[in-house]
């Protein structure tokens, strides 16, 4: 088992083609020796490695991710495995540090010989691990939504991902916000590369949806004092607020807004439940919080309701955004792998990049032009909250083709395109 992982890496290193294959973007046809012989062949086990933050600032999402991953592996083994092979899951903690995430991913390949990598990581870790997958020729499925840069410049023929969150979320959210509340928008975003993407994408899509940005504010990433911004919002008196912070910034902002008595609807670009619960359940009595989201437990498909029921009976809580994202993306990749003919990396890559079908949340298409998944988006509102649960309701469903830029628009800049 360990030998196998080694040999794959050694082949790549020895021929020196691993990296070249990646850059040339012709992986599926390259057949550089590892395509046929690699993977799990021989011992009838399909190995999936997950690198996700389990400790560090994002560790509050960890239980959702871990539980969903374990459930998924069990579900597949109950169904008879991938191509009849037992599925084995391996779990590594990235510690929210890129250097650790990269080394753990490499270790999963070298020591466990995984056939496929999945990640649930922060923006600063994602690129490094996608790169590990690409260099080693291991298909890598990124479950967390991330920065546009990751898709535009850092993707490679082996990387597959949830749509870049900035554009899809902005398209869904801007349409929903203008539709539900009106045209005048105040933007408040974190002042660093990802925040700039969020701001630009929302501004553009708000204008496309017929709205206008009446004013905007920026705060540093670790900001905890939002009083100047709340003052600016009061002055601008917009119909709704586009808000780009996650983490402690979101908590501080919601508290400040509630404190000042602002009851303007807030559209949170990202709303992971464990984070926004940090503001306390009472905040949601008065504050109207919306988010354009890829997943909530309230999505009305039979498969999802079944998933939600089982998740709740096993863990005692409803699956959050992180659980749904982790389950759905890895599920899609496993379904693709199940339909493939063999488990060599290039076979898997060609199976995943063409795959479309049904996952727990409904339709799911992997676009071969840019390796981004495409699925509907939802405008979800926080109905209420108690000490350890956010209760969502889906307000609007935005079809998949309305939120993702079409392949014609994007292919020019896509490094991961295999064409």
């Amino acid at each position, binding site marked *: 088992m*360990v030998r196998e*992982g*080694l040999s794959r*890496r050694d082949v790549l*290193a*020895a021929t*020196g083609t*691993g*990296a070249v294959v*990646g*850059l040339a973007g012709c992986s599926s046809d390259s057949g550089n020796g590892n395509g046929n012989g690699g993977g799990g062949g021989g011992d009838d086990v399909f190995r999936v490695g997950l690198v996700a933050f*389990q*400790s560090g600032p994002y*560790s509050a999402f960890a239980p959702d991710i871990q539980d969903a991953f374990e459930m998924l592996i069990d579900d597949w083994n109950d169904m008879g495995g991938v191509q009849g092979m037992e599925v084995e899951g391996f779990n590594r*903690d990235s*510690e929210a*540090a*890129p*250097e650790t995430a*990269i*080394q753990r991913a*490499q*270790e999963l390949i*070298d*020591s466990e010989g995984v056939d496929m990598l999945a990640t649930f990581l922060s*923006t*600063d870790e*994602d*690129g*490094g691990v*996608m*790169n*590990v997958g*690409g*260099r080693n020729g291991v298909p890598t499925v990124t479950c967390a939504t*991330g*920065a546009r*840069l*990751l898709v535009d*410049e*850092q993707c*490679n023929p082996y990387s597959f991902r949830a749509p870049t969150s900035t554009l899809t979320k902005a398209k869904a959210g801007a349409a929903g916000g203008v539709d539900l509340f009106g045209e005048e928008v105040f933007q408040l975003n974190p*002042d*660093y*590369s*990802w925040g*700039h993407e969020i701001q630009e994408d929302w501004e553009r899509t708000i204008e496309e949806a017929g709205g206008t940005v009446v004013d905007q504010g920026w705060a*540093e*990433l670790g900001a905890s004092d939002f009083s100047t911004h709340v003052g600016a919002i009061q002055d601008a008196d917009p119909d709704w607020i586009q808000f780009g912070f996650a983490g402690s910034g979101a908590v501080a902002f919601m508290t400040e807004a509630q404190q000042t008595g602002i009851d303007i609807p807030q559209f949170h670009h990202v709303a992971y439940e464990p984070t926004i619960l940090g503001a306390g359940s009472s905040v949601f009595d008065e504050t109207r919080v919306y988010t354009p989201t890829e997943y909530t437990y309230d999505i009305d498909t039979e498969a999802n309701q079944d998933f939600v029921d089982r998740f709740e009976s096993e863990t005692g809580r409803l699956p959050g955004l992180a659980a749904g994202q982790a389950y759905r993306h890895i599920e899609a990749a496993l379904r693709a792998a199940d339909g493939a003919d063999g488990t060599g990396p290039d076979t898997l890559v060609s199976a995943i990049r063409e795959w479309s079908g049904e996952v727990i949340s409904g339709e799911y298409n992997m676009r071969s032009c840019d390796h981004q998944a495409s699925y509907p988006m939802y405008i979800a509102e926080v109905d209420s909250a108690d000490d350890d649960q956010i209760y969502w309701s889906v307000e609007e469903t935005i079809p998949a083709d309305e939120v993702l830029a079409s392949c014609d628009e994007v292919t020019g800049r896509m490094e991961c395109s295999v064409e």
Partner: protein
Amino acid sequence: MTSIGLKPRLKATQSRFVTVKTDIEETLPPQVLQFLPVIAGVALAALGFVLPAHPLQVMTHIVILAIFGVAYDLLFGYTGLLSFGHAAFFGTGAYVSIYLTTAMEWPLLAILVVAILAGVVLSLVIGIISLRTHGVYFAMLTLALAQLLYIIAYRLDVTGGASGLPTFMRPETILPVVDLGNNVHFYLLCVAILVITYLVMKRILSSPMGDVFRAIRENEERAQMIGYHTFRYKLASLTISGVFSVLAGSLFGLFLYFASPRFLYWQMSGEVLLITLFGGAGTLIGPFFGATFIVLLEEFLSPVTDHWLLFVGIAFVFVVILFPKGIVGTLTQED
């Protein structure tokens, strides 16, 4: 003046700053000593040929952190200056090597030359600002300056912002037989740079300049009174330390095929302090053992507990209080 507290108790005992006068070399015969770094280097290099893939990665990580630690020790252990901002050098090195590899496709030698130049420039800027102060002021200033670099790297497009900069390949070398994409070759490069770093530091420390560094550590006022322009010597120590820290960072970037703003973050500065104090400040080879200890501790503890850092923290506090000379300093103590 170096004195920080005016508490009489502190002043009277200042010269008790831990000095490992019993350097490891004094316990060994000079003939062995002469070749010791080379012998150790060859032994380390030999490991590269026998270790499987993952242990080789771990070993490479240790060697790179050891270079960083040895560079840090010159400033902290021998000159008595506690920098809490050495991540500035380390992270800059990673950006230099990754950027020049991907955007410029430069060969290794050119990258290393630029890294050295970047190290000199950065050291001079940081040094001229922060060396106007002493002691804990210096520590806090270096920390703040490194954080400023972190903030900048997090925002700029050329650094990839938060997403960082990846590379798909390691640079070419002028020697056709060396392929850095081969992890064994890359490891051997790291070992070679570790040995060179050690020998250069050794050389500097046995020169008159090294004596002035130690004199500054023991009592800067006295060194000034003897007639040394201590500011210049401190700047020299910071620059040499900075240049080798940038080199270590360049290797770190190539090791991971990635540069991230996190490499500029204060936790990276804390890590090199941990490594140096664990191994033994003022021993020069101590940081190698400190790096080994920290990396292996994480390797073995992190699968068992999410809170392995708790044990690092506890171990560190114990070492600082009970074994201020670190692993190496304690083992080579003569009394």
